[in-house]
């Protein structure tokens, strides 16, 4: 008899059965008794339940590329808001975006007997994932390439965000849009989103490549200077920045060079963060729900701890939202609400 059948027989939810096994103290004593009686009656062995006796501690390991980005902090906060409700501890590890570091971390995580893991923007190969499956280690991949049907994946559709933002700029009649992008894990989705919007409008989009680590404030300053140094006729009339911090760097450089935003050039950001709130010009940007990404990833992981889940990997995609500020020349006050 499985969780669902036991739940039906005991007149409780599947979630309650899971809690009786994993967190018995969080269940009302009379409910717990009722469930245990039904389990006994049907000969269900609590200790044989998957997840019930795998690891002595309720620990979850989270790997993120770095400690710097505020979106990763938001993601971790989302995870903690879910895990804390179930009395699980979270340990955070930083991979620096390097596959070898990530492999070493996973090796350590397995040794420390964490109950499961959430890996953000991972570089792990299918072979690495297979190894984890062989060791019966439940894990969720966050913000890896959408369309990964072999693993449990939760991601924000950054491609759709790029599409919405590019389309918005094209609707505002910008003709020479430049995408500032590093070839990271989000690059393919972002460039496809921009391309889709550009093709619909029958225009092209230029790209300025960023070096690794060049997508912060200093990178924004540097790239803005490159644009300032271009002959006027070759300058873009709008730029798509990888994130708010980069956009702030650009705004700073443009201001120092007496270039007006949005009068001379529009500046838009493909990924929000808290610092964007202090930009000298209110930014038009894509709001990426990293807190929600963390919450959903944690819930997916908890699903894997329960014996009831189907074997088919789940993929949950979250939609980003366009927030219209003043940095691209919008003059309608509440238009963002309709997008």
């Amino acid at each position, binding site marked *: 008899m499985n969780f669902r059948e036991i739940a039906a027989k005991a007149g409780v*939810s599947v*979630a309650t059965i899971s809690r009786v096994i994993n967190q018995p103290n969080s*269940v009302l004593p009379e409910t717990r008794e009722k469930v245990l009686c039904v389990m006994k009656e049907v000969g269900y062995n609590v200790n044989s339940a998957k997840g019930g006796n795998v690891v002595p501690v309720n620990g979850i390991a989270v790997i993120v590329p770095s400690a710097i980005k505020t979106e990763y902090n938001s993601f971790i906060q989302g995870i903690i808001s879910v895990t804390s409700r179930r009395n699980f501890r979270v340990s955070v590890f930083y991979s620096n975006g390097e596959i070898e570091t990530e492999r070493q971390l996973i090796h350590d995580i397995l040794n420390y007997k964490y109950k499961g893991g959430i890996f953000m923007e991972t570089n792990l190969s299918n072979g690495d994932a297979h190894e984890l499956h062989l060791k019966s280690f439940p894990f969720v991949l966050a913000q890896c390439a959408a369309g990964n049907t072999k693993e449990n994946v939760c991601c924000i559709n950054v491609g759709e965000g790029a599409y919405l933002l590019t389309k918005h700029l094209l609707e505002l009649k910008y003709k020479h849009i430049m995408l500032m992008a590093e070839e990271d894990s989000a690059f393919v989705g972002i460039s496809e989103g921009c391309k889709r919007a550009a093709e619909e409008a029958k225009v092209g989009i230029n790209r300025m490549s960023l070096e690794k680590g060049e997508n912060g404030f200093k990178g924004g300053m540097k790239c803005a200077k490159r644009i300032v140094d271009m002959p006027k006729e070759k300058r873009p009339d709008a730029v798509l920045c990888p994130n708010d911090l980069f956009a702030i760097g650009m705004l700073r450089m443009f201001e120092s060079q007496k270039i007006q935003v949005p009068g001379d050039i529009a500046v838009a950001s493909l990924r929000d963060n808290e610092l964007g709130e202090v930009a000298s010009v209110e930014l038009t940007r894509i709001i990426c729900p990293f807190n*929600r990404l963390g*919450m959903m990833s944690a819930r997916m992981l908890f699903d894997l701890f329960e014996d009831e889940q189907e074997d088919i990997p789940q993929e*949950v995609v979250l*939609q980003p939202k366009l927030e219209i500020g003043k940095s691209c020349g919008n003059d309608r006050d509440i238009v963002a609400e309709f*997008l």
Partner: protein
Amino acid sequence: MSIEFAGLSLKNPVVVAAGSWSSNQENIQKCIDNGAAMVITPTICSEPTPAVNPEVFYKENEVYSLSLYSHYAIEDWEDELEKVEKKDSYVFCSIRGTTVSEIVFLAKQVERIGADGIQLNLFAPMDISLEKSILQTEEKLKNTVKQVVKAVHIPVMVRVPHYIASNVNYVKALNDSGAMAISGIDSIRGLYGVDIEKACAIPDAVAGYTGSHIKPISLAATATLSQLTNMDISSVGGIRNGRDILEFIMLGASTVQLGSVILEKGHAYIGQVIEEISYWMQERGYSSYSEIKGKALNTLLTFEKMAKKVGR
């Protein structure tokens, strides 16, 4: 006097709509203890929605609500629902997400925590972003609902606004989606007014407008849905008393939802309304709500037929 709804046997046709009056275990329990056959939770999203103050503007039966989604996370609802003593009533969870996969995931989550059914809240008046994505076409709407129906083992109901209730193509798409019930209407995008001295909109954001003034719109939506669908209809919008409930049933509703009136009169009013309709039914010798369901529909004519009738 029970009634069949979405494959469930309800003890009466009175349902409590999603809203602040069903915001937690305590309020849901009050609804059940006062006799509601079914209670719908506020809309549960992947992350809790921050509370604003004030959440509701109220004036002479007009309600402007800025609180469309639940302030609780699913984990909170897990605790709340576990404490609810359902007795012979049912609890549906209203849910909303930004993509099909997110909505499907939420549906499975609320089933896991003990929902007896799901209400899909796809057309929220304060956030019409889904209408540019997963609801952009009839086919997309059908696919969204179909995937939710496929993912869970409990009945699925779809809540629609008045403009969808009268859209033949969208309702047909829902007919083919596998949803067992349809509820309507949603509250309407509304602003209370403008302070002309300060040149300032009231409230600060577009709200969900409801109250007795939207009852005529809701009645027309119920009558239209009765013509367009075989799904069970749960009417909502401007219902204040037993007489209103009977009117909706006579236009084809299986169940009727009380919402903002509970804000004004309190949870005990649910019991009074149930008594009122039971008394009316008994007085007139009806033994089942199915005897009056849709009874007024055949008096509703097309304009052309009405013109001929008046002409005669």
